């Protein structure tokens, strides 16, 4: 992949082969191609470290899901497939707008670039807003792990309309207690994902600010492009989280 970006940039840079060094070429690189090649490779390596970070969480999830499957099913039934589904669509759409942003940056269309970046940011905010609503509901039902965690929805599903709708049977207390692990992982994994989104949105604000100054519409689009990789990565993590957390036993 880094090679193909290099080729792409190589073709672009060929236009001003004999002109002055572009201002964004750092002193220690021989050429724009080498710089693009190196920084693109670095970005992919960085994403690899992110994959390893989330892999740790996925391993923990996989083990406990295998051990405590009934509790994970009951816990999963407490999550709203509708809200999760809407959020998935929102996030995929934001990836589309992000990809378009890169496309417009490469074609040096400043206003279209700005529009796409702002849309991406707004979609991110909506996603986090919906996520916040879901978290709020969990806190209210005492499904946040810790001292206040309540087993009511699992040992006595009749008391909880969500559990009734899912057709849950009452769980024995020791099984029901394991739902706490499900919610612990739910909060840890979606929380880590949300944290990555917040960091991404912080960067996005910076990029919008710089894009208004025309920084990315002069041919040097790398930063937008690499941010796009990051944004897609965060999106992909969600694509895994959604079925693993929301859709257990709902096929």
């Amino acid at each position, binding site marked *: 992949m880094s090679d193909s970006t290099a080729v792409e940039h190589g073709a672009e840079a060929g236009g001003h082969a004999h002109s002055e060094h572009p201002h964004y070429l*750092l002193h*220690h690189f021989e050429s724009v191609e080498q710089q693009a090649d*190196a920084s693109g490779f670095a970005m992919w390596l960085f994403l*690899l*470290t*992110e994959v390893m*970070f989330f892999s*740790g969480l996925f391993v923990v999830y996989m*083990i406990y899901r295998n051990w405590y499957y009934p509790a994970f099913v009951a816990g999963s039934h407490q999550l709203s497939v509708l809200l999760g589904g809407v959020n998935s669509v929102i996030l995929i759409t934001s990836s589309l707008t992000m990809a378009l942003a890169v496309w417009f940056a490469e074609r040096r269309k400043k206003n279209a670039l700005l529009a796409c970046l702002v849309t991406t940011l707004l979609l991110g905010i909506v996603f986090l807003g919906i996520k916040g609503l879901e978290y709020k509901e969990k806190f209210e039902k005492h499904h946040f*792990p810790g001292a206040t965690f309540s087993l009511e929805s699992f040992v006595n599903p009749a008391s909880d309309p969500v559990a009734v709708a899912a057709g849950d049977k009452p769980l024995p207390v020791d099984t029901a207690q394991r739902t706490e692990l499900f919610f612990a992982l739910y909060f840890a994994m979606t929380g880590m994902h949300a944290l990555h989104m917040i960091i991404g949105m912080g960067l996005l604000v910076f990029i919008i600010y710089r894009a208004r100054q025309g920084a990315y519409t002069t041919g040097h689009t790398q930063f937008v492009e690499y941010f796009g990789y990051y944004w897609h990565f965060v999106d992909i993590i969600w694509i895994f989280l959604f079925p693993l957390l929301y859709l257990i036993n709902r096929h």
Partner: protein
Amino acid sequence: MSSTIVSLPDQSTARIPKDNYLTRENGILSWLLTRDHKRIGILYLISMTFFFFIGGALAGLIRLELLTPQSDLMAADTYNKVFTMHGVVMIFFFLVPSVPGALGNFFLPMMIGAKDLALPKMNLASWYLYMAGGLLTLWAMITGGVDTGWTFTTPLSTHYVNTNVITTGLAIFIAGFSSIFTGLNFIVTIHKMRAPGMTWFRLPLFVWANYAASILMVLGTPVLAVAIVLVALERAFGIGVFDPTKGGDPLLFQHLFWFYSHPAVYIMILPGMGVISEVISTFSRKRVFGYTAVAFSSVAIAVFGFFVWAHHMFIMGISNYAVLVFSLLTMLVAVPSAIKIFNWAFTLYKGSITFETPMIYAFGFMGLFTIGGMTGVFLGVSGTDIHLTETYFIVAHFHFVMVGGMLMAFLAGIHFWWPKMTGRMYPEKISQLAAVITFIGFNLTFFPQFILGTLGMPRRYASYPPEFQILNVFSTAGATILGVGYLLPVLYLVWSLKYGRIAGDNPWQATGLEWQTQSPPLTENFAVPPIMDHEAYDYEWLENQKAKEVASVG
């Protein structure tokens, strides 16, 4: 037979080049905001020396407490905090960044003929993260400390202690990013920044070793990060992932932790092995025997290193079949390590060996690392492991690898490249003495601990039965000698900055590209971008170069 290969310029006329990376810019800000890999290497060197002596002072306290069987110098829980801090500081703030941070930053770009690392800003950021992590650790230490051991074993760290676990964890998390940035930077640099003609199999073995270590840093460190995050969440919110009362499993923490921390010992040792390859070749005037095998053994260590982590848990209730598999894999790691040792030995064979200080350290490395590595096999065999684990045997084993191996390699590297870094030679006689003192002190300190371990003295206790005292007294005495061995280089290396003899470009007649430029180097490393037209360690090429120079001057 000449007894030395050192060739210095005529001291009456030689001068340090006026324009070099040290003199190009001045002032404190030119250092703190520098993007020059050489200056960042120096920053790392100074700061990690600082952390080394903090960790060393803590080690001194440990040995002093163990002089007597009772817990008398400090209370038992203070002792716990002291050995925890010794471990945390030494591992995360000295051993992991030592060779890559100081020597790797400085020399890796020069060795491949590049002007700088691929991502200079990220390189500087890695030093700042390292400092932030280090200072936060010291903060945690002076505001109450942490007493879990450097392994943060659950459920001890999550449920049973009330010390600065989260602060220290955060510090390690931050330092982990520093390590990731360094590793990432090295990988990108080695792939994309090599000079024309510098093919993969012309790279110095130091570069190969750092490449392998970088892979481990990039793949392993994030897993440590997630383990630390989960411990912090467990402590802060009681999420139950490591809590048996909630269905969690404390052993899972060990899996995550050792998935990083076992490869981490290879992060620590591999760059050291790279240094040894350079030194052995230079001071026996021969190409490293079996270059390809040594290069690939680094990569093999990196790959195997990821599949042996569970040997830290043989007594902790993992399944017998897992023990079998991990035991086998652990013994397999000994193979590439042995390949290195044998190849270095064959490099020495019929070489013109001279005994300058770096070479003495390198010999020390070979002996001590071999002992450390072999005892590692004892611990990899589950039968003996059950007897020996959590005793002083294991303490001795990893100190032989880490201190006897890695620290010797680090000192070998510092002496070897000191003339290039500063433009001046260190004083030879006293540094040879320091190397010998270190070797003697080291053996006196840690060899008795093998015996203590087989006798069954457990690690991590402030007191012990009186019959173990004599060996502990030996060990403490050795630690004192070792301390002198480490203090001496600091003194004479600082002295040499002003009074050392002018080194010239290539005092060792070494073949690496870093020696084919002025000392100290220019900010951009090479006056003319180099083209690599010969194999690594090609001493004939070097002879021809010299002959050509003489001819052209004549």
